[in-house]
């Protein structure tokens, strides 16, 4: 490892350590507010909470069993879906549209709606050139709050199922959503948005501004940008449009809610969304913050924090491997780069690394770290182009997403995915010590296994099936920007991103086609709702079970041995389901020498 990679890795390590340090106290706060314990903030915002609950007609103490909880979550998602879809196709007739953007095409609107309702934020189109302020603020931004809130509600339902034997009651879905938004997502994003505004990110409802370029550029006959004095230039460009709008608030929740959908197409590579090193650091840290806090909340809820420690160790181990690989790959001077003339391999410890597709202000190291975090946490925002990364640099986010939402994952859904794998590991490990499986004192029978299995395999199945449908269509060959193997990687990445509800993408793929929009839209809905429903059924089953005293006979699920087993199972299932596909994509590229 080069010294550069070493210091970048160290920097990323410090960042992750900071997040873990913040997630610990946050987890206590999360448990307090979600369980409705008296806190100062609840006294201050209590009237809001109560009126929001009255609005939907629920009482705080009205506990739901899994059927009602699931029905509520599905109904809520359906209403969100219909609302957002209608809004997007009718955008032209709605207010706050200074740029007069028309309504979206049906397939695009379907994809966008599925994407934002499922906390994916895959965007077939760039926001600043297609969406009105109304669509952004009332449509997408609202979903950016609601979809992680649904995730938190489901995660807490599962935790309550694990922790209590309260006759199958999992809490109240609507109360959970209100509390998650009011006490968790809103305050945290308010802080982050204010820092963004302080650092220079726009927060306004004014129209886009036209600014003079300091250094004019030109375009050639094909419309590509060239230097002003280039002989092929046909027209000089002296002004540029600067998209404004409520950007800082959108960025804050996109990072905190593992949404990832930026205001601009360039996402956090854009200086408007991510103006300074401080914002870059905070946005990086915001991605895993709530997912990590939820893992710690698990330990608090079941009354044994060592349980969280074991899970967290697994998460950090995978994340560290991902961070390390992508940083090492991107900071290295590869022969391919040398062939392009981008680096000179003769120089000792040359430091440029792979600058293609990176924002100069941000650099290789921070771009690589961001890429690992955004894929591990099912966030999907970007501060660099993954398209332009090295084969290993592309493989890492593919793998981190393809493992399922376990390495932090989405807000709520990440914990669900991790616990799904934990149930599986408990099952195998229990049998190996000659006991019927039980997790935290609750017996795991066929009914519980069925649900855990759905949680575990749904993402892999979704990815493989969606990628299969995509490659079968002749239209796909036209949509990819590069020939195979990279063209295949582009399609695989799209399917993986949707199946992991991640939302990041390879920009070479022209994804706004009816086929890709519909396939990915359906995939996102499946990958979100199947595990969500399974988690609630599982929670309902567990909540009805009596806790057994395992004592010395039982399997310890808080020790290092269990953590290792869990790690191996997660990696093995991920590798077994996706390795052949990876071999045809990034691995082929890596070993072919093609770049």
């Amino acid at each position: 490892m080069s010294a550069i990679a070493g210091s970048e890795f160290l920097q990323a390590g410090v960042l992750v350590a900071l997040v873990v340090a913040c997630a610990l106290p946050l987890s206590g706060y999360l448990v307090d507010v979600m369980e409705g314990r008296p806190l100062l903030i609840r006294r201050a915002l209590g009237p809001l909470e109560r009126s929001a609950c009255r609005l939907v007609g629920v009482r705080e103490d009205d506990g739901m069993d899994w059927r009602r909880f699931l029905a509520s979550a599905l109904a809520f998602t359906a209403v969100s879906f219909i609302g957002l879809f209608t809004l997007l196709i009718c955008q032209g007739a709605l207010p706050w549209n200074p740029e007069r953007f028309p309504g979206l095409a049906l397939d695009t609107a379907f994809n966008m709606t599925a994407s934002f309702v499922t906390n994916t934020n895959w965007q077939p189109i760039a926001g600043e050139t297609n969406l009105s302020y109304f669509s952004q603020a009332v449509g997408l931004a609202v979903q950016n709050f609601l979809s992680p809130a649904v995730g938190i509600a489901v995660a807490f339902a599962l935790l309550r199922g694990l922790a209590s034997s309260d006759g199958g009651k999992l809490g109240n879905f609507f109360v959970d959503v209100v509390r998650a938004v009011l006490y968790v997502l809103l305050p945290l994003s308010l802080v982050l948005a204010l820092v963004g505004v302080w650092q220079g990110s726009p927060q306004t409802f004014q129209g886009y501004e036209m600014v003079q370029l300091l250094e004019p550029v030109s375009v050639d006959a094909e419309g590509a940008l060239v230097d002003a004095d280039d002989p092929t230039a046909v027209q000089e460009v002296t002004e540029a449009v600067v998209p404004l709008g409520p950007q800082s608030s959108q960025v804050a929740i996109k990072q905190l809610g593992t949404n990832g959908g930026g205001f601009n197409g360039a996402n956090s590579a854009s200086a408007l969304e991510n103006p300074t090193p401080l914002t870059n650091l905070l946005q990086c840290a915001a991605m895993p913050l709530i997912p990590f806090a939820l893992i710690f909340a698990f330990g608090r809820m079941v009354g044994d924090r060592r349980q969280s420690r074991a899970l967290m160790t697994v998460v950090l181990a995978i994340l560290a491997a991902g961070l390390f690989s992508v940083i090492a790959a991107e900071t290295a001077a590869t022969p391919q780069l040398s062939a392009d003339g981008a680096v000179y391999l003769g120089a000792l410890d040359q430091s440029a690394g792979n600058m293609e597709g990176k924002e100069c202000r941000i650099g290789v190291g921070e771009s690589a770290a961001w890429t690992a975090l955004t894929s591990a946490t099912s966030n999907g925002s970007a501060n660099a182009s993954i398209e332009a990364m090295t084969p290993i640099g592309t493989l890492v986010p593919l793998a981190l997403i393809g493992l399922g939402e376990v390495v932090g994952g989405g807000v709520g859904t990440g914990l669900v995915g991790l616990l799904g794998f934990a149930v599986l590991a408990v099952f195998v490990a229990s049998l190996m010590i000659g006991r019927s499986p039980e997790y935290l004192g609750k017996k795991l029978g066929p009914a519980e296994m069925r649900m855990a299995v759905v949680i575990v395999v749904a993402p892999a199945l979704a990815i493989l099936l969606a990628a299969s449908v995509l490659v079968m269509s002749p239209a796909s060959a036209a949509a990819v920007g590069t020939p195979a193997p990279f063209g295949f990687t582009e399609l695989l990445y799209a399917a993986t991103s949707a199946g992991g509800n991640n939302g990041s993408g390879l920009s070479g793929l022209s994804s706004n086609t009816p086929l890709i929009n519909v396939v990915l839209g359906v995939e996102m809905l499946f990958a979100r709702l199947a595990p969500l429903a399974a988690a609630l059924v599982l929670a309902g089953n567990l909540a009805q079970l009596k806790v057994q005293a395992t004592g010395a006979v039982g399997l310890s699920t808080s020790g290092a041995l269990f953590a290792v087993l869990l790690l191996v199972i997660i990696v093995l299932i991920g590798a077994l389901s996706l390795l052949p596909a990876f071999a045809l994509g990034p691995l082929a590229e890596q070993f072919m020498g093609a770049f």
Partner: protein
Amino acid sequence: MKKETKRAIRDAFAKLSFRSQAQNPVMLMVYLSACLTTVLLALALAGISDAPWGYIAAICVVLWATVLFGNFAESLAEGRGKAQADALRSAKRDVEACLIDNAALADAATMEDPSAFLADRGRAVGSATLKRGQVYLVRAGEQVPADGEVIMGAASVDESAITGESAPVVRESGGDRSSITGGTTVLSDWLVARVTAEAGQSFLDKMIAMVESAARKKTPNEQALELLLIALTLVFLAVSLSLYLFGAFTAAQHGAGNPLGITSLVALFVCLAPTTIGALLSAIGIAGMSRLNAANVLATSGRAVEAAGDVDVLLLDKTGTITLGNRQAAAFLPVGGVSERELADAAQLASLADETPEGRSVVVLAKERFGIRERELAQSGFAVVPFTAQTRMSGVDFEGHEIRKGAADAVRAYVEARGGVFGAEAAAVAEEVSRSGGTPLVVARDARVLGVIHLKDIIKSGIRDNFADLRAMGIKTVMVTGDNPLTAAAIAAEAGLDDFIAEATPEAKLAAIRRYQAEGHLVAMTGDGTNDAPALAQADVAVAMNSGTQAAKEAGNMVDLDSSPTKLIEIVRIGKQLLMTRGSLTTFSIANDLAKYFAVIPALLVPLYPGLEVLNIMHLATPASAMLAAIIYNALIIVALIPLALRGVKCREASPHRLLARNLAVYGLGGVIVPFAAIKALDALMVFVGVA
């Protein structure tokens, strides 16, 4: 070749029907894959193919072999049970039964020789026609016609047809030895019994069904494991199908034909699917039941066997399990200035007529210590006073003296009734004996207390180690005894038990089980008497002694044919072993896939991207040889693991943590390494014989 193996091979082919394959989803997919390759082979022979016909034929043969190996494993496991069932069936003959009507039964009660009278009055019927509630007579040399509850008489019975134990057992009316089983033989005397189970539902019938695993249902753990295997199979189906499409897309981009053939992808799918555990799953379950049967325990369901593995509290009866059935006199402790010899002399006299093992041991101890010879009871002037439930004492009246021995409170009442004093010293000595785990027997002559005999429980040799093993496994042992708490505590400490329930009544036992269960424990117990039935019904694993009453047998979920009190420990071990075998082979099966990937992926994809040859870390000769090596390994590993599946993985008494570490190392890590070596070897072999 052994008969069992032959039968298993025949059965393996018989199980090729779709219906038997449909029982096992994973193997069904292999079966369908084999069918598909057969069709592909036929097409290839007709000239339509995407691979050389020889390759397709080889894959096809290996796939069918995989299916057959799975069938064979199951048949072999069933074979053991079938052999046992055959032996049992031979005991189940239709015999002539002597049916007694109620009038004759009432008359017989007053007869001098009821058996002769009843034999006269009885009516001969076929045993198969006996109905529940009817009464029959069975005499020496006859076979018991049906399961029954003895209502008159006592006899020695040969139960070897069921238990394999040749020593005869006593069956008699009343008490806990009143149940008799159809198919056993009366050796001496006679019995009158009321039918408790008709033909077809008898104990023997149930036993046959059980060992034949005809009534085998999948246990919850098996169902859960099967769900996991189905899910993995689905994923690998998706992997194989999608790989075909990905290959086609890639090839089209290169402007070439898809090098991935359907045959290879079918082979890939079978390689990856968890066939090892899928093929052995039912064999493991059946073999677990067989092992239990071999230990002479019959379980009413596979669920009960698995529950045995989960038990963490064992209720063990003191007598027979922890201590030898009888206590022995260990010391004479005189009080009030009486010499030890005087006490020994009186104690021996009081015990001369006492034929219990405790009584004999008093006589022997007196002889050993003081050379006091046994005296003939026939001597004049001896009047034996036997033990009664009212006096709770026994003794002799001798030359005008009354010598009594009994429990301290009984003797106190006796002495005080005669105006004597039960001194504080005697009470203290008795207390001391209790505290040390012994049983004090106070000896009194006339109204004077002479001293105390210390009766000691003899703890079975080796039982302490047994309990230490159980503790290492995390299982709590609880002794159940009628003794007072002091004695119980001392014995429990000496034998190394975790806890005890003293002065236990059936109600106390039931309450204790409920209490443990409420704390979240799973409780196992053994029992034989009718009054154990409620506790047996409440326990999670309840082993009834075969010598016990019908009520106890019905309340329990297992019957121990040997009626051995220590059997519970063995049952727990077998239950654990069953689950461990399943878990370990699952781990092994899934871990195998890693090596198979390194064989198969380069083999399949190198034609598209030659650079992927770097993944061929085993340096397998050709894509075809790599593919074949992987799939042949996949088939052969089933055969190689059959002995392990039938025998079960080694069950050690270790903490869960150490067990997991060990099994993960052996079956997880081993499962990663073994196939690399084996696939490489198979590939080298193919190169050597020249097929690759």
